[in-house]
């Protein structure tokens, strides 16, 4: 009974945090390209190791690695926060910086029916950005300055529920069924400011709001080869992503074909306390090009990440594994003729806050990434911090 109450409290806490975390901050100008910038639901440990969300040894509750959830034995939950600071340069004149915060993953797993039921909420595509252009309008009194402000605010998010189970001591399989959700508001405003001779000009505003819907199914496995190697793989099939305009929206509805996504990953314990990981992802987004009305360049998401973990480090008597990694992925949408890439070097550490019988009941992981996103026209340098809190055994 006590355990059930504790579980309920944890569930309520996670739900409350999830609801509060729904707004997703903008973190890249690539949000303006095509359907936006893909956001991976990866925790602090995975980020520090350059991982792409699959194949990590040990505790892992990621929607892209359902097989690993099958190897969990106790209830678990994870909450990830991710602030970032970005400098961008586009051509000679367009440069600046911005910062934002997002919560890319909130997940929970609970053992039932000889397996592990999972639920997660995370980001899929970031779409928020602003843009503006200065224009001159011709009035009878002469030309007057005005500014067009365009604001796109919203995101495609992803909610999934799944079931994973251990088929043998060293093999876990699982799947999750997800639903794409979220919405985007696109508003163009012409502001005449105070420069115009005629007073009291009302702003011109046109735009709309679209709600997203769609479904996905992810299936995967994770296998431990002895106590040295873990290998994992998963694939995600998505239905079309439907964008439906609200009643007042004049712009039409749209359907986007989402790609099949493949992921593989592995972790190898080279020596006690020394783990190396590698992962790769592939998704071909080119089929979506015909669905876009803008002239974005559409490509494939191919990427890999490698990392090393020194798990026997400690600080002030606390187990503090150190992690380093590198990741390199291509982005599906870009502005220039060439595709965009994201590269990042990462480092981080974890804390085991509460441990019982070798099982981590509470831990925190931090990662710092220094990277860049670039295509032939836009360069972004970013610092990205990922902090995740995981609890187990509630």
């Amino acid at each position, binding site marked *: 009974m006590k355990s059930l109450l504790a579980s309920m409290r944890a569930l309520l806490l996670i739900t409350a945090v999830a609801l509060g975390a729904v707004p997703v*901050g*903008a*973190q890249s*100008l690539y*949000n*303006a390209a095509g359907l936006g910038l893909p956001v991976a639901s990866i925790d602090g440990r995975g980020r520090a190791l350059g991982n792409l969300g699959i194949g990590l040894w040990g505790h892992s509750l990621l929607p892209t690695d359902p097989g690993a959830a099958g190897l969990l034995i106790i209830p678990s939950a994870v909450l990830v*926060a991710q*602030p970032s600071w*970005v400098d*961008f340069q*586009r051509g000679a004149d*367009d440069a600046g910086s*911005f*910062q*934002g*915060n997002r919560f890319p993953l909130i997940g929970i797993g609970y053992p039932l029916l000889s397996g592990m039921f999972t639920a997660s909420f995370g980001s899929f595509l970031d779409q*928020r*950005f*602003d*843009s*503006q*252009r200065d*224009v001159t*309008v*011709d*009035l*009878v009194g002469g030309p007057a300055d*005005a500014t*067009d402000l*365009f*604001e796109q*605010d919203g995101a495609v998010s992803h909610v999934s529920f799944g079931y994973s189970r251990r088929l043998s001591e060293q093999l876990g399989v699982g799947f999750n069924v997800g639903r794409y959700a979220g919405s985007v508001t*696109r508003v*163009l405003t*012409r502001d005449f400011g105070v420069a115009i001779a*005629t007073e*009291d*000009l*009302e702003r*011109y*505003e*046109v735009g*709309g709001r*679209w709600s997203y819907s769609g479904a996905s199914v992810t299936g995967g496995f994770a296998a431990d080869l002895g106590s040295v190697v873990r290998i994992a793989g998963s694939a995600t099939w998505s239905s079309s992503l439907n*964008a439906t305009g609200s009643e007042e929206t*004049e*712009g*039409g509805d*749209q359907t986007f074909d989402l790609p099949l996504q493949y992921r593989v990953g592995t972790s190898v314990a080279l020596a006690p306390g020394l783990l190396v990981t590698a992962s790769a992802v592939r998704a071909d987004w080119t089929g979506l090009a015909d669905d876009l*009305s*803008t*002239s*974005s360049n559409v490509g494939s998401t191919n990427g890999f990440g490698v990392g090393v973990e020194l798990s026997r480090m400690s600080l*002030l*008597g606390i187990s503090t594994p150190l992690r380093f990694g590198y990741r390199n992925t291509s982005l599906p949408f870009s*502005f220039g003729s060439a595709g965009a890439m994201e590269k990042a070097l990462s480092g981080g550490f974890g*804390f085991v806050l509460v441990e019982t019988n070798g099982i981590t009941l509470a831990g*925190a992981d*931090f990662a710092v990434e220094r990277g860049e996103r670039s295509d032939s026209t836009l360069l972004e340098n970013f610092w990205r911090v990922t*902090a995740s809190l995981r609890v187990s055994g509630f």
Partner: protein
Amino acid sequence: MRRNFIRSLLGLAALGVVACEEQSPTSLDESVLPQEPITLELSIPWEDFASNLEVIGGFGVPAEIGRGVLAKSFGGTLDARTLLRFAAYPTEASVRDTTGTTRTDGSLTFIGGRLVAYLDTIGNTNEGPVLLALGATQNEWDSRSVTWTAAVDTINHQRSWPEAGAGPVAPVSTAEWDPESGDSVSFELDSAQVAEWADISDPSKSARIELLTEGERIEIRGAVLQLSTRPSLNPDTTIFLPVLRRDISFIYNPSPEPPPDGIRVGGVPAWRTVLDVHMPEQLDGPEALCAVVTCPVALHASELNYAAIVFRSRRTEEAFQPTDTVGIDARPVLSRETLPKAPLGSSMLGLAGRLLGPEVFGDQAGQDIEIPITLFARDLITGETDVGFEPPETLALLSLREPVSIAFASFHGPGSEKAPFLRLIVTVGRSVGLP
């Protein structure tokens, strides 16, 4: 130590996440913006946006202004006189007696006095000295209904002046006023006249000031009666005690006729001009617009950036020509069928209204005067106000404060080359879709 370290670390991490201010990435790259809309200016002639023009007079009375007007053959026609009634005389005063002690004296003797009139040096037309005459009226008059010909004109009581123009009067004194000598003029009063005006129970006891110099118009800002008083405590001393005015009004002749072809605002009783406004439902040009959208295109309220009725000022009748700034207001008429007593909505021009110098109706007549009506026009396009009511279609053009002056503003009306027109600034573009 360990626990504190962990708490500090988690606290810092939480603080860092929460304190990270959201800044939306802003790019100057035009390629990510929707197609540029077009902003253009349209002029809609009177016939296509307005109808049922009506000039209505009779709002307010001269007594509400709290000022007086004097004129003699101004503009070749206008005569105006000011009527004044005074409050009760003081019955006691603090005076210094023969021993030098200040005491209240309840036994005062009024041995004479003077009526001081304060004149508006800006609103007057004269540049040289003018002669004014003070007389004592002989007939009862009602401050709210008095006119050039009627002393009383209330529902149950009508009585004309024996002589038009608040006459006859008993002459009291004359005085010359030179604008260069100051802004006031004094009329000397003898003790008999002072005693006559002391009886405030008799409504016929009052003063009439008239202008004897022809061709000028003067405004009186106020007046005060100063009584030369001999106190019983110190009979060798004369003190002056002020008596405030109780009523001030003015009468004038002739009353202006409604303009047959123009637009009039102001005056006293005040004139208003009302008109019905219709907004175009669709736009069919100009070429620049039709190059962006398929014409004709429906006009939506959100596309209307600015709407204003442009009036052209014109000279007013010389007798009622403004000599000071004119404040114009525009308000929706909430119930046209109840005109002239229809309730009006909120001002479209704010507290300051639209202030126009007198030259706009004189030497610089013909100027464009814009009266913005953007929100009014937007409501007409949508067919409802922001609170869901049917929007009024009728607009009233009136004086900012009403009444405020004998002068009024005039504008060219429909049918002339300088008829009012509707100025619109609209922005039209294609709808914003998904990327």
